Structure formats: C-alpha cells, structure tokens
C-alpha cells in the first residue's frame, strides 16, 4: 500500500523492540467482543489510476458552473481565482502544517493570519477580525451568541432579508444555548422593520446587506436604533466582493460584521470548505470567538507573530470558553489573503464594479421580458425576479436550454409564499452572451 512505509521486516523488528509477539497483543485492551477479525464488506485497496477513474467518473456526472450560462448565487458565488492562489496554497508548508501553536516554526502561517485579520478589518470597516470561522452562516450564529455575552440579554432579532440557511443555522445553534431568536417575516426589502422590534431585552439585531434577495441597504438608522436600546448591530454579508463597492458595515455603525468570504480566493466546492469572516469593535475583542493572531517580539527583539488572547478559547477555558471552535478555515483564509493581495484596493474596486455592471445588464435584460418583474431595486451583483409561475419549474425547464437560471427562493424557504421568486447573480464570469441566452430562453418559455 503506497501510503504505508513499514515493511513486514520492519514490523517484525519493531514488535521485537516492543516485546510483543503479534500486533494483536497491542490491541489487548479492546474487549474481545469488539475485536473485528474479518475485514469489512468494503472493497480492498486500489491504485491511483483506479481511484482517479472512479472520481473522474463521478465528477463527470455533474454539470460544473463553467459549462454554460450560470446564474446561481444565494450565498455562494462563482468568481475567477488567479492561478497563483491555488499554487501557493498547495505548497507543502502551508497545506500540510497544523494550527500554528509553535510560533517559532509557524511564522509563515502566522504572518498570513495577521495580514488576513488586517484585510478583513479594513474591508468591514471595523477594528479587529479573527483568524476565520467555518463559514458565513456559523459566523452569524457565533456573532449572535457573542452579543448575548456582551449585553447579557437573550433576544436576537433576525431581519426578514437574512439568508434562510443563516437564519436556520443561527436558530439551531443559538437557540440551544438558550437564546430567544425572533425571525421576522421573510420580505424582499424590509430591513427597516427590525427597528420596531427592538426592545430593552434585545441583545442584537441581525441585518444582511446585500440581503438574500440582493437588496443593498444603508443600515445606519438601524444601528442608531439598536445602540439607543443598548443592543448590538450585526451586519451579515454573503458576497464579500461587494465590500469593494458598498459602504462598509463599520461605516454604517455595525458592532460586529460577519461574512462569507468564499467569493475571494475560494472555489464553489458544492458548499464547502468556505470561510467565515468575523470582525468587531476593539472593545468587544475579549468576547470574540475563534483564534486571534497578534504581533510580538522574539528573544532577540525581532518582530514575530503568535496566537494570542487564547484564554477565550476552549483548550484553555473549557466550558467557559467563548466558543467551542478549534479547527477553522486556515487554508481558505490563506487563499482569501493571497487573492486580495493580488487584487489590492484598485483591483477589488474594479472587480466589484464589473460585478455590479454585469448584474445591471442582467436586470435590464430580464426586466425587459413581459411577465418578469425585477424586485430588487438597489443591488450589488444579485437580483430577485418574479416570474409568472413557479420559479423551480422554470429553472428545471431552462436546463433543457442549457441555462442554469439561478436559485428558486422556494429551495431556500418553501414556506415563504415566494414560489415565483428566482434569485439570479452575475459576476465577472458571466458573459454578455450568457445573459442574452438566458433572457431569450426565459422569454421563449414565458411566451409559450
């Protein structure tokens, strides 16, 4: 077996050094009833070629996003990742290292994390960011629980524009910890409605911009209302490229910003691994979940980086930790940081502008079709459209035209009564021809 270096001779010699007669002697503590002597009903080992054949075969059963006109978004976005990013993240020293607990031999990872934290803080307009969470949805749940620790209140208000999966994840996790999660009625453009629900028990309000329908909102007034009541404002973003064009959460008064960072540096990967971004105001840092990298000096006074403030974390504080998170999304953070370094501010702004322009073109093309209503007025790169029928059926029909039209809202939430709503995103990957093909096919099907 190609991954196992020991030879039968090695094994015999080693057993001799140990003083054991057989390998079974080393498993002597396993109760006899649980020792499985026969092998499992699974195939035996396979060569690289054989494994590759099976997996290439499975991959071929999928239609990748790049196979034709493609408009899915809803929390995961198809962007171009420079070849340099994937090359660097496959370097052994990044790919096959552990969490940087020994800083003297992990400065590569640590300096990257410090750069990552600074980039995320800049993007979100907040003071500090952690070294990543699993994804945007779990970061959202963690932010809500952090608000409880900060305010010592139990109620969280989720706006109706929050991605239904984020709402469900937050509901599942934060509710278990004893929080009251108030989820407002799903609505396309009703972020301001959270203001009326804020009361003296409110720990936080959670508002997404651009929201799941693509609507971009200025949340400044919501921040003011929350702060007046002693609550925190958590701003969620599922499309990190939008930071290049839209006002940052910090600028609008957010106390905590969480985001899905997949858009920058990371592939779609059918939903994971992704990367949760998590930033907050400096005064809240000791209540933050997750790892933090900080600057220090070594014994010779040279600048270096270490993991710090770890007394918040599970391996030190155990049941009193701010979170149970251990493994995070380190390599995805590296990809994010490399991509953002390649972009720079100039490139990110330009990329964001291209995305916005593509979406405007898409909105114009779809809006021109009789029977189609563009519901999203102010958007970044994603819009919600109302079709004259079930969106799910239309998406399935359009597959025959070679078009993946987007995500039917009913797939995310079948109980919202928005079965005729389709979410469509455009990015720099979207060709003008793709938009034309989509619009033509849609018009044809509606006209039938």
């Amino acid at each position, binding site marked *: 077996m190609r991954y196992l270096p020991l030879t039968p001779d090695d094994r015999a010699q080693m057993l001799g050094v140990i003083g054991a007669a057989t390998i079974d002697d080393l498993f002597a503590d396993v109760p006899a009833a649980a020792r499985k002597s026969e092998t499992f009903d699974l195939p035996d080992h396979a060569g690289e070629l*054989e494994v590759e054949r099976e997996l290439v075969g499975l991959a071929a059963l999928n239609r990748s996003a790049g196979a034709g006109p493609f408009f899915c978004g809803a929390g995961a976005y198809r962007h171009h990742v420079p070849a340099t990013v994937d090359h*660097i993240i496959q370097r052994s020293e990044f790919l096959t290292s552990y969490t940087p607990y020994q800083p003297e031999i992990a400065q590569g990872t640590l300096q*990257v994390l410090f750069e990552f934290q600074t980039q995320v803080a800049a993007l979100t307009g907040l003071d500090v960011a952690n070294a*990543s969470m699993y994804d945007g949805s779990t970061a959202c749940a963690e932010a809500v629980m952090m608000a409880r620790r900060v305010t010592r209140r139990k109620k969280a208000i989720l706006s109706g524009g929050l991605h239904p999966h984020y709402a469900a994840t937050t509901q599942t996790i934060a509710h278990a910890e004893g929080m009251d999660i108030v989820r407002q009625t799903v609505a396309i453009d009703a972020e301001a409605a959270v203001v009326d629900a804020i009361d003296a028990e409110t720990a936080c309000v959670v508002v997404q911009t651009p929201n799941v329908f693509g609507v971009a909102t200025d949340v400044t007034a919501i921040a003011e209302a929350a702060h007046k009541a002693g609550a925190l404002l958590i701003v969620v973003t599922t499309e990190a490229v939008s930071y290049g064009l839209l006002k940052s959460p910090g600028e609008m008064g957010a106390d905590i910003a969480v985001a899905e960072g997949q858009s920058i540096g990371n592939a779609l990967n*059918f939903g994971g691994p992704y990367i949760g971004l998590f930033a907050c105001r400096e005064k809240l840092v000791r209540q933050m979940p997750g790892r933090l990298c900080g600057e220090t000096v070594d014994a010779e006074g040279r600048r270096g980086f270490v993991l710090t403030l770890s007394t918040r974390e599970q391996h030190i504080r155990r049941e009193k930790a701010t979170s149970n998170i251990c493994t995070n999304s380190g*390599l995805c953070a590296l990809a994010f940081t490399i991509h953002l370094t*390649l972009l720079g501010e100039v490139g*990110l702004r330009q990329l964001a502008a291209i995305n916005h322009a593509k979406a405007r073109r898409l909105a114009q093309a779809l809006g021109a079709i009789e029977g189609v209503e563009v519901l999203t007025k102010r958007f970044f790169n994603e819009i919600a459209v109302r079709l004259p029928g079930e969106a799910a059926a239309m998406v399935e029909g359009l597959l025959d035209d070679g078009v993946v039209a987007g995500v039917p809202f009913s797939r995310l939430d079948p109980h919202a009564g928005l079965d005729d709503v389709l979410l469509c995103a455009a990015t720099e990957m979207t060709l003008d021809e793709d938009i034309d093909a989509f619009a033509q096919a849609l018009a044809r099907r509606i006209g039938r």
Partner: protein
Amino acid sequence: MTMQNVGRPTRPEDVQPLAAEFASLTGGRGLLQDEALIFERDGWTKTGVDLPEADLDGSDLGDLARSAPIGLPGLSEPEAMRHYVRLSQKNHAIDLALYPLGSCTMKHNPRLNEKMARLAGFADLHPMAPLPTVQGALALMDRLSHWLKTLTGMPAVALSPKAGAHGELCGLLAIRAAHEAKGDPRRRVLVPTSAHGTNPATAAFVGYSVTEIAQTEDGRVDLADLAAKLGPDVAAIMVTNPNTCGLFERDIIEIARLTHEAGAYFYCDGANFNAIVGRVRPGDLGVDAMHINLHKTFSTPHGGGGPGAGPVVLSEALAPFAPAPWVVHGANGLTLVEETVEEAAQAFGRMSAFHGQMGMFVRAYAYMRSHGADGLRQVAEDAVLNANYIKARLSGVMTPAFPDGPCMHEALFDDSWLEGTGVTTLDFAKAMIDEGFHPMTMYFPLVVHGAMLIEPTETESKQELDRFCDALVALAQAAKAGDVDRFKGAPYLAPMRRLDETLAARKPRLTWKPESGVAPAPLAAE
C-alpha cells in the same frame, strides 16, 4: 487538537542567547528572508490582476457606495508569489518531517486527493445548483456515507458538520432533541478530566452544565465515579476512545451499559479513530454518536488550522434527529432532503448554510478508496505499532505516564524524568525544534503532569521513527547531563527565537496600523 503550551505564555527574559551568536546585517537568516508585511511595501496603488474596464460604475448606488478608502495594499504577481513563498519557508510541515502532535493525527496527505478535489465537476459546483446537475456529487456523498457507516457499524451519518467541534455540537444537539422528544429534557453532561477542551466547551454551548468524571490510576474512566454521577438529569457522557492518554477504555462496553441504563446517551469523541479504524467498530461498543475528523483519520490536509470536516455517525435512537440536509435515493436519482420538508420533521435544524465540506469529502473518499478495507486495517495497526515502538525506545530515558501494557496510537510521557534538571516540558519541546522536529503535544491531557503526547501516525517509516527517537534520546541525555542552556534558550536555529506571548496578550496588536496613525489614501492616488 490542542496544544496546551499556549495557556502558559512564555517570556524570553530567562533565555540566554548563545555567547557568540552571529547575526546578519539585514535581519534575514540565509535563505530565510526577513519579510515585511504586505502593508509595508507601498503597494497602495498596485494590483496583480488585469481586469477589463467596467461598463458602468457604482454611481447608481448613491449613498450606498463606498467613498472612503478601504486601506488594502496590492502586489504585482511576482511580488505576491515571492512574498508568500518566502513566508511558507518559515513553516514546519508534515512533508518536511515527523509532526508528532498527539491527538492531531498529522499524517501524509496524498496529492491524488488534492487533484480529485480540484476536478471542475466538484470544485466548480454550486451548492444550490439544480439537483439533476449535481448527481455525481450526491453519489459521492452517498458513497462516503456508506463507508463511514460500515467502518463505524452505525446506521446513520450526518455529513454537514464542518470540523470536529462542530460535529460534537451536532451530536449533542441530536441528543438534546431526542431527550426533548421524550419530554425529558436533561441538564448535565459528564466529561472525563482528560477530555479535549472542545468537549466541555461544546456541552456548555448546547446549554448543559458539565460534571467531570475522575480517572483511574491506569488512565481510564473511573467506573465507580461514573456510576455515582450518572442520574436522571444526565443527558449524555462524552468519552474519547481511545482516550487522550492514548489508551483504549477497557470498560467501554460497561460504560455504555451504565450510561444507557441511566437513560443517557453515549457521545464518543472520534478524534482518535485512527487507532482503531478497520479493526473496531464504535457501533459494537454501544456508542450513540461519534464525530469523525476527516482531517485526521482520513487525511484531508490540516492547512495551517483548517478546514476540516466532522461528519457524525448516529445510532438508531438518534438518527431521526439528524440535521438537514441528507442524501436519499429517489425515483429520479439522488436527491437532498432539506430541513424544510416533511421527511425532516424531526431534524433538529441545520448546522451550516449548505451540505458540509464537499472538498473534504472528495479527498477523504479518495483516501478511503485508495486504502480499501484491508489498507485501513493496516493503518490502525501501523499507527499503533509506531506509537508503541516510540514508547519502547524512549522508556529508557523518559517516563511513560502509563508504563504497564501497550498504548494505542500515541505514547504519553510525564515530566518526572526531568525533575531536578531545571528543564521543563516546554523547554524540552522547544529544543526539539533545533533538532528539526515539531514538538509533541504538551501539557495535555491535563491529568498528567508536564504531559508530552506523541502521535507518530502510520505514515512514518522506521528510519524516520529512529531518527526521531535518536534525537529525543540525545536531548534527554543532554538535559540530564546539565546542558540547561540548550533548552532554556531554545530554539536557537529556528526562523525565530522564542516569542514573547505574554507581551502579545498584554498589549494586543491584532492588525497592522500605519505608524503615522493616518490611513493611506489610495483613492487620491488614482
């Protein structure tokens, strides 16, 4: 898993530099460059991508548009490449040498798995793409599930948890839902003192209070203490098996029996599954839920801290409460049950936005298929053999915490052999760096004084194990011979000397800030 040294911040004052230490004039060390941060390279107007001009600007967004500078530097492609490659050279990696972190299972990461995860059919696949277009992905999830269920002897698996701790959360939420469904919400979870920090943290996260179970002198769960602490308010026990001392819980079946008798569920922390994969099925031990760290046992790369994946296998009793989504065979091929439909009525909710760590599923499945049933069994055997070999070779100079009987996949030593030398576990570990090895897990488990937990894994050759043991024997002899400076000042030869963690925590500097206090203005430069 965890490295307890971070809880004991080091200060370098007591470190004595080598008398005749040579320093370069520019701060680098030969090929190791002193590398500035991206923020210190005046790249405020640079970019390393060539993008077309946008047809439109964002002016239609009015006051929603960002006006202030963001503060992001850019680098051209060659500069970016050099920057990150230089940084990479300051890292230890499993591809460089044995990486003996106990509880972390740092094993070889086959590159076939990387190649497979990057196939466009997997990597360029949207989680919400129409189901007819993702049949291959669902089939892979289905096959992975079959392997995980077969290897563990458990009837169900939830794939969506994104890491071990997230899997623990999933398991405890299923347990909580099961108790609530019976109208018997319980409040306490029992956790052995030797447990990973994530166990009590997770229990608290789910709203349970945590009670510790004592350990016996031979490093196992104290059955009498367990029996005494079980009661009608106990929801679950969380036991790692093999445990964090690297020992198999001999009384595991009795532990499960007592737990079930008290109406509680048995959560097994599967972090150490590598020791028993292919030889022991947790389902035969009475386990109700167990997470499997695909990034440990099934070799998806650790990536400097993640991503991982933590699927949770579940017993019949807990399976109905599994979180959405999951894959089912339908009339038109494979489909996903999402939490909003009737089949998922008992599902406790959702762990994350989509279906889990697909990129890790592909890698783990490629790894399982490569090993096969026979190879996986050999994995466990060689992992255990390697650990026992290290234990045998080092027992002459170091003190095993539990000398009697074999260990499983990791060898645990205490620091009693260092008594009187003036050298601590931390010093010893730092001196290993100078010899070219990553330190073992230190000061964990908490139940062993000055613990040194060594997990070699099965992917080390006998030559590498001997090289490692030779180095540790030489170091141990040096410590006992009074060569204290070698340890107190260590590491001397690493990219950096010992770092001041106390300073870092006292005055946290978590982001780069321009020294002038004025943010650069890239917009003005445009």
